[in-house]
């Protein structure tokens, strides 16, 4: 005889779901509109998506207000976990998405944006990411991960070029493998502890003193592989350059930011307790992975001939750099991760948007790829403002002060220093110097070379519309004047991270 299920709506705390539901509702609305009346202009969908994202953002802001007064809240059978990390990550996710979506308003028409489904999938994907970060239940993580991933594969494929299909297939297949890794890893921990909630897993493991350390490590290895795929850590990174190249530049920029922050938050939740429980193996492995990811991807970025592919490798390197925060595992490091990523999202979205703005509909003969270095030669002569902005983004990515990313690097290296990882701090610093070369290479092309083929500069702004320019302007402002925002950001982030217990 089952007793009737008696659950008070209070304890369900459905408000915790609000931020995720808003994009879902938005996506459904878009689909309904399309069914009712097809063939509407993309600007409608762009604005609608933006509207729902704004509402989402407000909802998160509301949640952050609650967090500040009440601390961490659980909801929906304790599956939802709204702590500082979740809120911060959602801010980044939704904020970056808001910066991304106006990029659809290009001057030239591109295939994907003519489908309303694109926007619906996009909103679904955001909801998936939000679920991923706002829980410590591995099931929900898995569901969120796959929801967003599947949507993302489709979005990439919608660019409708051979290369984008190839990229989608590669990404998809490897993603499926990673999903296998993730589920197997979850299974091992379930077998070991009888739970799929990270905090319970941690409690049980700590209670039995990591008796089955060998199996724990096997599980960790599977998880590391799964997160390694998502975070493009070497050797699980191989999809990244191809997918970035195949996807549209705006999508590539988006991919370098949002999926990774979601994965970082999950990784942080998962590895936090392991790192702190003194498992040397994990330290060693993470150390090696971080260093190899930073360094090797830098070396590969050096030899690229296409700017977008170079930026892809550079994104891998940045991910490795930030992964160090999880290795270090102090509050400062975790705060540094968020600070870094927020600043990175401005700069990186900005630079990818610049590429996007210069995307031609058809490839001219003298260009080997969409964004080859040659294309940017002598840009200062024909499009000085665009060249200056692009140069600014490159300097920021290289970590030249006082531009945005410098502060991220500063705080990140400082956390390595504070955490006692001196050698790591030095490696991080020197890697920034190596990275300087390839960012500089683009600056050299733009400022110090003559154009390969005479052009009036239109090629660099062929897609420019007010919307694109606004986004790039916001990114540029954010990059230049980051130093004003560092203090409030830092205080905000540190408070949230600290109060979440990380």
């Amino acid at each position, binding site marked *: 005889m089952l007793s009737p299920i008696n659950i008070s709506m209070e304890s369900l705390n459905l408000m915790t779901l609000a931020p995720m539901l808003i994009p879902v509702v938005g996506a459904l609305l878009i689909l309904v509109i399309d069914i009712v009346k097809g063939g509407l202009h993309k600007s409608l969908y762009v604005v609608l998506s933006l509207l729902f994202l704004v509402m989402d953002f407000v909802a998160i802001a509301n949640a952050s207000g609650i967090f500040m007064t009440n601390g961490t809240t659980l909801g929906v059978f304790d599956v939802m976990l709204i702590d500082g990390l979740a809120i911060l990550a959602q801010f980044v996710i939704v904020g970056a998405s808001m910066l991304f979506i106006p990029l659809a308003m290009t001057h030239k028409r591109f295939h994907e944006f003519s489908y309303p489904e694109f926007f619906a999938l996009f909103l679904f994907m955001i909801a998936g990411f939000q679920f991923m970060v706002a829980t410590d239940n591995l099931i929900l993580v898995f569901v969120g991960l796959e929801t967003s991933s599947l949507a993302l594969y489709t979005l990439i494929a919608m660019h409708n070029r051979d290369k984008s299909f190839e990229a989608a297939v*590669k990404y998809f297949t490897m993603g499926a493998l990673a999903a296998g890794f993730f589920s197997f890893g979850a299974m091992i921990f379930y077998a070991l502890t009888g739970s799929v909630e990270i905090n319970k897993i941690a409690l049980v493991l700590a209670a039995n003193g990591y008796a089955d350390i060998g199996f724990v490590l096997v599980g960790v290895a599977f998880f590391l592989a799964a997160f390694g795929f998502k975070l493009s850590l070497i050797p699980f990174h191989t999809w990244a350059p191809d997918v970035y190249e195949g996807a549209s530049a705006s999508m590539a920029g988006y991919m370098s930011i949002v999926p990774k922050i979601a994965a970082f938050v999950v990784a942080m939740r998962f590895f936090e307790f392991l790192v702190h429980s003194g498992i040397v193996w994990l330290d060693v492995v993470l150390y090696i992975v971080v260093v190899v990811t930073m360094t090797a991807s830098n070396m590969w970025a050096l030899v690229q001939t296409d700017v977008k592919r170079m930026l892809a490798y550079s994104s891998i390197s940045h991910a490795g750099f930030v992964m160090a925060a999880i290795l270090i595992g102090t509050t400062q490091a975790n705060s540094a991760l968020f600070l870094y990523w927020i600043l990175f999202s401005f700069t990186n979205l900005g630079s990818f948007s610049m590429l996007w703005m210069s995307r031609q509909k058809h490839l001219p003969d003298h260009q080997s790829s969409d964004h080859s270095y040659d294309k940017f030669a002598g840009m200062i002569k024909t499009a000085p403002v665009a060249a200056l902005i692009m140069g600014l983004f490159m300097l920021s990515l290289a970590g030249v002060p006082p531009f945005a990313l410098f502060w991220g690097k500063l705080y990140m290296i400082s956390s390595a220093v504070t955490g006692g990882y001196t050698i790591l701090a030095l490696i991080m610093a020197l890697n920034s110097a190596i990275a300087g070369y390839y960012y500089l290479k683009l600056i050299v092309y733009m400022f110090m070379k003559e154009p390969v083929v005479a052009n009036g500069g239109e090629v660099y702004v062929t897609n420019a519309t007010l919307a694109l320019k606004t986004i790039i302007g916001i990114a540029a402002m954010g990059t230049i004047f980051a130093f004003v925002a560092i203090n409030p950001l830092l205080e905000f982030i540190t408070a949230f991270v600290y109060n979440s217990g990380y």
Partner: protein
Amino acid sequence: MEKYLYIALFAPFVSSLFSALFTATPKKLFTGIIASLLIFTSLVSSTILLIYLFKGGEPIHVEMMTWMATGDLYIPFGFLVDQVSVTMMMVVTLVSTVVHVYAIGYMDHDKGFNRFFSWLSAFVFSMMILVMSDNYAGLFIGWEGVGLCSWGLIGFWFHKESASWAANEAFIMNRIADLGMLIGIFLIYWNTGTLQYDGAFAAFHTLDPTTLTWIGIFLFIGAMGKSAQFPLHTWLADAMEGPTPVSALIHAATMVTAGVYLVIRSNELYSLIPDVGLFIASLGTFVALFAASMALVNRDMKRIIAYSTLSQLGYMFAAAGLGAYWVALFHLMAHAFFKALLFLGAGNVMHAMHDELDPFKMGGLKKVMKWTWIMMTIASLALAGIFPFAGFFSKDTILEAAFADHHYVIYGVLLFTAGLTAFYSFRLVALIFHGEERYKLFGIHPHEAYRFMLVAMSPLLLFAIIAGVFQEPFFHMVEELLRAHEYHIHSHTTLWIMLLGTQIFVGLAILYAYKKYARSGIKVPDGTSATENSFIYKLLINQYYIPYFYEEYIIRPYRELSAVFWQKIDIKIVDATVDGIAGIIYSTGEKTRTMQSGNLSTMLKWMVVGLVVLLSLAVIFGVTVRYSDGAASALSGLGVM
């Protein structure tokens, strides 16, 4: 009196600046005249100061302004006119006045007339700073300043390769010595806390002998360069590339004696370290002989006089080293007069002979250049030390001093050198003015110099004749400052024998020179005679192969080593390392990028391989932890935690 001090000091400076205004314009006669007048003003002021001091006035010490002051270091622009410096001022201004006037004529046709006077006056100014400064740093200003002017004047005819080479050689050689001087100054500062003469001298008495010896040695190294003592002597002969008035003023009368002045100035130091003094005296004696020997065979009129200068500087150092500072100073003064005269005379001859320098190509010039002949003969007599000319009083006193101090070797060598001096001086006079008129073979029509040039030279002639008169008054003037004592050989008989003996020896040398070179039938040497092929002759004419040695074993290796440093070390090693590191990083990227083959199968394999590696690491670690506690600590020892 301070007024005169400043006039004496700055008149040459004004003169230099004034002439400098016209360096880029064609010849302006008035620059020469105004410069000469200003230098003359300086001479007058110096004379007033001399008279003041001679009458027993207190030394004048002024501090114009601070130069450098930091930490404990305090260096002012301070000037001191005492008995010693006023003597130098007199010598400098007198000779320079003469040379300035003379140069108006000598540089008559030169394009760089105005530039010449600017440099020349600048030199006088530097020299005045050198002698008047009241501290070692100020002395060093003048020291380097005269070096600079000497560079500019030796290389005055810079279109000549040899001239600019000689200028650089002189500057660099002097720099080598200046380093020694600089080190000496540092030592003085860190040991006494001051660079002022009075303060430093007072402190010297409290220092230990080792330190003093080092100070003495380093200061003397400085003096060696400026006074062209062995082994830094080669520049002086090469410096004869400069215009002759320059040689007269700088490389005979004034600048080269700065080294002697330094030793005399620092007499309080050197009297505390007699060992160093003896070394100085020995070196001076050696140089006296060494230089005189080279003068014996040389065939360049100006170089012969230059070697003679070198030789006489050796005398001065010998005196100063033996503690006979006033004798050295007196010889310095006397020498300045007759040697400048000799040079200016040589300048007349050069002018007459269209810059021909080989005396073998002259001969019989006394007919056309009577006054020059007289002047040069008297100057040579003075140089040889014949009574009653200036050289007799000064040089003989040096010999007496050496004898009285029982340094018989020094005495002997110096005496012998006196004979050599007489010989080569009159060899020169004989070759130029006597004998056949060989110049006719070369189609030259010599003429006497301008009258005003000869008049300008006359003060020097006068002093070359009568300077000896001033020996006693001079002695009394500087007595107090230089703690001088008159050198008296105890036995009058000895003294007389010495005096007479010296005179006879020197006289014989002169006669021999005349006999050998004033006769007819002298030929221009062509490298065939037996003498010219003898070992000694070759050794002497090649200056003991020292310039050759420098060229082969110092200059050339330096040049080659520089090239090696640049091309081998800097480019091939240091820079290549930097580029190599960058290259390694780049090529690693280039090589490993094939890992990204683009084939999905490979990409999947990488993922699986990554997982397998992680798993095997996990298994290995799990197993090790289970079976050994040691491994864990070893791992944590890697510095991960």
